[in-house]
């Protein structure tokens, strides 16, 4: 028996429903093959906040991964979606598989995943989900040899500038999912089937998608097929040499022991004017504010209206933004009366690398 899993990385509130939908589709596909599964969003990511990095998962237990899965999938993907065979539902090992996957049910995340589907390409920089944890790299849970599938208009080589090095090898795949369908999880799943075969079969996903979208089922299944056939990907070898990460995720064991903590659930206040050192909120950002000095009249409204106290009060510094904390909400750009602030995608800035 083998446990396989898919991770979905998105942004809170705007993409939470899509995280769930993708998990439901993968789990429904597993069900069509007779395999039990669990689907869930990471509990501590909720309450989800607008922009915060969040994760969802599908965890499947199968008896074995068919050795020729990739070949079967490729043959199926060459045909129109209504011409492929139905998935075979084999429940002969259901009971043991159920026991295996249920054994993982009291965990907040699977131990490792075979594929990471990234909904917003700025998330490849990593996500700091809550205080004390630090920055989690996009491949934190990925198995050696797994795949990262990114919804992006950029090239995989460009995206590699922002992904921290790791000792694992992985496939980096890119698909312009939002350009293909407004339910953009479908192209992501299609792309995943190509670069990470064996989690669920192509035909099981097609069957699940057809069922889920009813009258539009065939149309949506064709989107999956199209993505399967046009995903671009590169193989990323393991990094050599020491891996220096500026901010790394803290492990459970590094947290203080029970007798090292102050009594009475006490946390000491940060000094006045000092941002909270335990939680940097820059990974909320898809866009960052950029001030045009020609247009700025130093009225200070951008500083005034920032909910995150992320700007300097100094007009000579043009109320410089603290990029470790700015969430990219865009309020400053909105309230600026001279329209001196533009919101620019994070990946335009090479120094958006967090390692």
């Amino acid at each position, binding site marked *: 028996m083998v446990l396989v899993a898919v991770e979905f990385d998105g942004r809170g509130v705007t993409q939470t429903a899509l995280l769930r939908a993708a*998990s*439901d589709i993968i*789990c*429904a596909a597993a*069900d069509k093959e007779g395999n*039990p*599964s*669990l*689907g*869930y*969003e990471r*509990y*501590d990511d*909720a*309450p989800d906040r607008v922009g915060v990095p969040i994760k969802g998962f599908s965890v499947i237990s199968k008896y074995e991964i068919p050795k020729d899965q990739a070949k079967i999938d490729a043959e199926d993907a060459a045909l129109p979606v209504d011409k492929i065979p139905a998935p075979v539902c084999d429940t002969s090992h259901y009971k043991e598989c*159920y*026991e*295996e996957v*249920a*054994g*993982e*049910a*009291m*965990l*907040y995340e699977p131990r490792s995943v075979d594929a990471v589907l990234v909904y917003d390409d700025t998330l490849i920089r990593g996500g700091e989900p809550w205080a004390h944890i630090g920055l989690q790299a996009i491949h934190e849970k990925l198995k050696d040899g797994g795949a990262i599938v990114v919804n992006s208009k950029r090239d995989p080589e460009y995206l590699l500038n922002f992904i921290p090095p790791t000792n694992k090898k992985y496939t980096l795949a890119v698909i312009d999912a939002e350009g293909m369908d407004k339910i953009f999880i479908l192209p992501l799943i299609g792309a995943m089937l190509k670069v990470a075969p064996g989690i669920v079969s192509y035909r099981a996903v097609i069957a699940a998608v057809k069922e889920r979208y009813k009258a539009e089922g065939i149309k949506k299944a064709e989107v999956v097929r199209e993505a399967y056939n046009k995903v671009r990907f590169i193989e990323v070898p393991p990094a050599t040499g020491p891996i220096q990460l500026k901010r790394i995720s803290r492990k*459970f*064991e590094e*947290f*203080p*022991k*029970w*007798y090292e903590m102050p009594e009475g*659930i006490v946390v000491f206040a940060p000094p006045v004017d000092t941002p909270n050192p335990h939680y940097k909120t820059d990974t909320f950002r898809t866009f960052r504010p950029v001030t045009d000095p020609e247009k700025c009249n130093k009225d200070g409204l951008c500083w005034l209206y920032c909910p995150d106290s992320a700007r300097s009060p100094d007009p000579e510094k043009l109320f410089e933004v603290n990029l470790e904390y700015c969430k990219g909400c865009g309020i400053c750009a909105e309230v600026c009366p001279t329209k001196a602030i533009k919101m620019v995608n994070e990946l335009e800035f090479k120094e958006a690398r967090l390692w």
Partner: protein
Amino acid sequence: MVRMLTTGTTAIATAVKHADVDVISAYPIRPYTGVMNELARMIADGELDAEYIVSDSEHTQFEIAKHAAACGARVFTGSAGIGWAFAHEAIVVTPTDRVPVVAMVGNRALDDPGNFGVEHTETLVVRDLGWMMCWPENPQEAYDLTLMGYKIAEDPKVLMPYVVCCDGNFITHVRFPVDLPDEETAREFLPPTPPPRVNVLHPDRPLSIAPHVDYYWGAEIRRQMDQAMKNAIEVTRKVHEEFNKIFGRGGPPFVEEINTEDADVALMGVGGMAMPARRALSQLRKEGIKVGYIKLRRFRPFATEDIVNVLKKFKVVAVLDMDFSFGSPYAGGIIFQEVRSALYDLSERPKVVNYLIGLGGREITVEVMRSIAKEVYDIAKTGEVKQLVKWVGLRE
């Protein structure tokens, strides 16, 4: 049968819909809110006809439920953690008023500090009041136990409230494969209208419910409640049998033995922890280490005879408590103390040890279950208990 992937909260909402509940009182608190969201949606879409009251607090919720039930309606309410604690006054008088309220609790660690992770303490602390309590292992059981709950609570020999306790996140939020019956079959088992009873407010039969009393009356009223809880044991057995006949599942009513053949040693607990336990103990069995798991499906009423009969064959029983009881005997968990007390009179009784596990919502892995099982297996071998009460997974 409708096979779907769903959460404990959606499964329970479906049971509530099938039960044709008349009055629902809602108030948000993580992690049970999903059941109320789903019920609101069902009503807004015309799938269920019920009065749905957005309450101003949990105390209000439970008061609304109690009085709606007192007028004969079938009701549903619920809460979690500190919210359930806010409702305590209403929770106290619901069993005393002998109304069959059915509620759901999304088990959550009590404040302070706020923590959405699962702990069972918030429900266990009201174990003395007369609420029937059960713990599903997964969303499938959550549906089953809720539907059965109405039948048990409304039985004229019982008339006590009933709460279904779902581990926060693991049973409330995670989507599992479940088989839900259709409404028609569910209503074969549970008719939409509760059986008639005397203590209902209606002009056709004027009566006063709960007048003030003095010492001439109190003890007898308590004894009636005591009898109701004793009757609940037989009624629960009967309802499980009926459920099994119609749906082909349901398991033993109070306590289920998992992997116990030829085992001298058993772990015992409530709720979702049965899942990693099953896996761990299956693996260990293949490795020649036989340890069983005793799943306590229902904690109130505590079916002493059933539980003692199951436990007495073991040399060592390790109770896994996902709760705490500060300053208690041996500073152990709540279920540990009750199980020990239940076994006290046996001339040959198992050693009972305690593991405090998963506190604050900490994960429970197959590995943790394995290591507990091995440790307890060694206790049986050596006869030596190094630590009676152990905190698992603590940073120390």
